[in-house]
C-alpha cells in the first residue's frame, strides 16, 4: 500500500531530523579544524567564527618558539603558512609526522582491502560453486573467527608478531587486518556469487572458455557490485582500527588513528590541529565510497536471466 501524504511527511521530518543529529559531531569536527585555538574552546560555542588555516598548518608542521628578532628576520618574504606560524610567535622547524602516518594508513588500509578481496572472492567462489568437503563446517569456522572482539586475542597476536618480526611493519598490519576482515568478505561475497546464475559460467564453458576464463570474464563482472560494497566495509574497518594499531605500531608502520591524539601534546591543547587531522583522515574513505557508489546502486544483472 502506498503510504499517505501525511505519513510520508512525518517520516521525512524524522529522517531529516535524525540525519542532522548524526551529522552534527562531524560538522563540529570539520568546523573546529578551521577555528583558532581560543575559538575552539570558547563557551558558549561559536557557530560563527573567523576561519583560519592555523590548525591545518600546525597539523603538517613541527614548530619551535623563536625570539622577536628572529621572527623579524624571517618575516620578510615569508609564505602564507610561514606567516601563520610566525603570528603564533614560532618558526617552522620541519614537516610533522602526520603525512607519513597518513600514508601508512593508506598503504595498510588499501593493501589489506585488496588482499582481502582477492582471497575473499576466490574462497567465496569455491564455496559457492564446488563441492567442498565439510563446506558448512568450514564456513561456520570462518564465521566463528568474528564471534569475539578481535582485540580479545591482542596479546597472543602481539607475542606472535614479536617473534615473527612483524611488529610495527606494514606487512604485519596488512596481514592482521586481512585476517580480521576475511570472514566478513567470504560470507558477503559468497552471498553475491550465489546470486549469479551458474548458467553464465556454463555458457562460457560451452563457448570454449576454461573455468578460470569463465570466472574472470563472466563471474567477476557480475560480482562487481558485491565486491565493491564488500571492499568498502573492509576498508572502513582497516582504516578506522585503533586498538591493534596502538598496540602493534609505534613508528615506521604507525597508522593515523593512534597518531592523531598525540598531536594534542605537541604544544598545549591544539584542538584545531586535532580536528584538522581527523578531517583530512576522513577524506580517502569518503572518496573511495563515492567512487564505488555507482557500483553499489547499479543492478547490472537486471533482466538478463528470467527467474
Amino acid at each position, binding site marked *: 500500500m502506498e503510504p499517505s501524504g501525511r505519513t510520508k511527511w512525518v517520516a521525512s521530518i524524522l529522517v531529516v531530523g535524525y540525519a542532522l543529529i548524526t551529522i552534527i559531531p562531524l560538522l563540529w569536527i570539520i568546523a573546529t579544524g578551521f577555528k583558532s585555538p581560543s575559538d575552539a574552546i570558547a563557551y558558549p560555542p561559536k557557530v560563527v567564527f573567523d576561519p583560519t588555516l592555523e590548525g591545518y598548518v600546525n597539523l603538517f608542521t613541527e614548530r619551535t618558539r623563536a625570539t622577536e628578532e628572529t621572527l623579524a628576520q624571517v618575516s620578510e618574504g615569508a609564505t602564507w603558512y610561514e606567516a601563520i606560524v610566525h603570528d603564533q610567535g614560532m618558526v617552522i622547524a620541519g614537516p610533522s609526522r602526520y603525512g607519513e602516518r597518513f600514508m601508512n594508513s593508506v598503504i595498510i588500509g588499501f593493501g589489506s582491502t585488496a588482499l582481502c578481496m582477492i582471497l575473499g572472492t576466490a574462497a567465496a567462489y569455491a564455496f559457492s560453486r564446488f563441492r567442498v568437503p565439510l563446506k558448512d563446517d568450514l564456513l561456520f569456522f570462518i564465521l566463528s573467527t568474528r564471534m569475539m572482539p578481535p582485540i580479545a586475542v591482542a596479546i597472543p597476536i602481539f607475542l606472535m608478531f614479536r617473534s615473527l618480526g612483524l611488529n610495527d611493519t606494514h606487512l604485519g598490519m596488512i596481514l592482521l587486518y586481512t585476517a580480521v576482515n576475511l570472514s566478513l568478505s567470504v560470507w558477503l561475497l559468497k552471498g553475491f556469487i550465489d546470486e549469479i*546464475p551458474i*548458467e*553464465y559460467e*556454463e*555458457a*562460457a*564453458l*560451452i*563457448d*570454449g*572458455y*576454461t*573455468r578460470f*576464463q569463465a570466472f574472470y570474464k*563472466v563471474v567477476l*563482472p*557480475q560480482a562487481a557490485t558485491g565486491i565493491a560494497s564488500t571492499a568498502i566495509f573492509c576498508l572502513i574497518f582497516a582504516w578506522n582500527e585503533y586498538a591493534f594499531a596502538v598496540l602493534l605500531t609505534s613508528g615506521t608502520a604507525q597508522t593515523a588513528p593512534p597518531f592523531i591524539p598525540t598531536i594534542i601534546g605537541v604544544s598545549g591543547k591544539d584542538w584545531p590541529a586535532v580536528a584538522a587531522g581527523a578531517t583530512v583522515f576522513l577524506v580517502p574513505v569518503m572518496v573511495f565510497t563515492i567512487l564505488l557508489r555507482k557500483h553499489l546502486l547499479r543492478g*547490472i*544483472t*537486471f*533482466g*538478463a*536471466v*528470467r*527467474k
Partner: protein
Amino acid sequence: MAQIRIENVRKEFGAFTAVESSSFTIEDGEFFMLLGPSGCGKTTTLRMMAGLELPTSGEIYIDGEEVGQKPASQRDIAFVFQMFALYPHMNVGKNISYPLISQGMSRAEARKKVVEVARILGIENILNRPVGGLSGGDRQRVALGRAIVREPKAFFMDEPLGALDAEFREHMSEELRALHDRMGSTTVYVTHDQLEAMQMGDKIVVMDQGVVEQFGVPQQIYDWPATKFVAQFIGSPPMNFLEFHGMVGNGMDKVTLDGTELEVPKLLEGTQGELTFGIRPEHIRLDSTAPYKGRIVATEYLGTTQIVSLDTPNGPVKARIESHERARVGELTGLKFDARTVTLFDAASGRALLSEANQGVLQHG
C-alpha cells in the same frame, strides 16, 4: 554435424542415482527429444552429453569420438539454457560473437558472422542493444544466435521454451524446428511437455526416475507404449487402464474383462496375475449394443471432439468421441474398443506384453 551415442551412462550424486545405466543413439541431423517429468534425469543426461556433468560410468560418443570425461569447452557443441544465460554485461552482438572470440577469430570476421546469423534470426536491428531490455522471444533468439554462430557439431537445448509465455511458445517452437531443418544439425532437446516433444521431435526418449522407458519415433511411442508410465505420460487424456485379474498365453487374441470377452492383438508371450488392458480414448466408441457396459459420469466439450468419462467395472475410462454424438450423463451405455490398438500390460512390472501389433516397435526400439 554428428551422431551421438550414449552407452551405459550412469550418474550418481552421492547416494542418489540421477541416471541409471542408459543407452541410445542419436543419428546425424536428428531433432531428438528427451522427454520426462521433472527429476527424471533428462536434464542430467543432456548435461552429461554437453560436458557440464561428468558421468559416473559409461561412454558418450560424439561423431565417433569418446568424450565422456572431456570438459565442455573441448566438445564443440552449443547449449541453449532455459534461462537463456545471456551475458548481462555485454550487448546482443557481443553475446553472439563471444564463442567466436574464444576460438581466436578476428573481430572483423566475427562481426561478419554475427551479422549473418542475426539475419537468419531476424535480429539485425538489435545487435547494439543491451540484453537487459529485450523481450523473451528476442532473448531466446540471441541465445540461439550464440549457439549457431559457431557451427558446432550439435545443439543441446534445455527446455528452451520453458521461460516463454504460452502464446509465444508455439511460434518459437515452429521457428526452432524451421531453423533446425535449415541447418540440418543434430539437436537434442529436453522437455517435460509431451505435446512439444511429439510436435517437434524426429525421435523421442521417454525417461522416468533415471531410467530410459522407451525410445523411438513419436507415433510409435504414442501407439505402442513400452510401459504403463509411457502410456500415461504421453497423450492427453492419457491411455485408459482397465485393471483385471487373469491369465494370458502365447498366441491368445482374447481376454475376459468382467465376464465379457474382448479382442486384443495376438499375444506373443504369456503371463498371469494382475493385468492391465490399455486403450487410447480415441479408440473407444460408445455403442449401446456393445456387451461391455459403462455409465457416463461427465462430458467435456472440446469443439470438434468431446471427452466422455465413464465408470466401468474395471475402473474409470475416458473416451474421445465426435462432439455431435449424443452422450447423456447418468446413461448406461456400451463401450466398443478398437481391438487393433489395444496394449496389454503386466500390472506389477508395468511392462507391455509383446503382441503381433507392437513387436516391431518394442523389439527394435
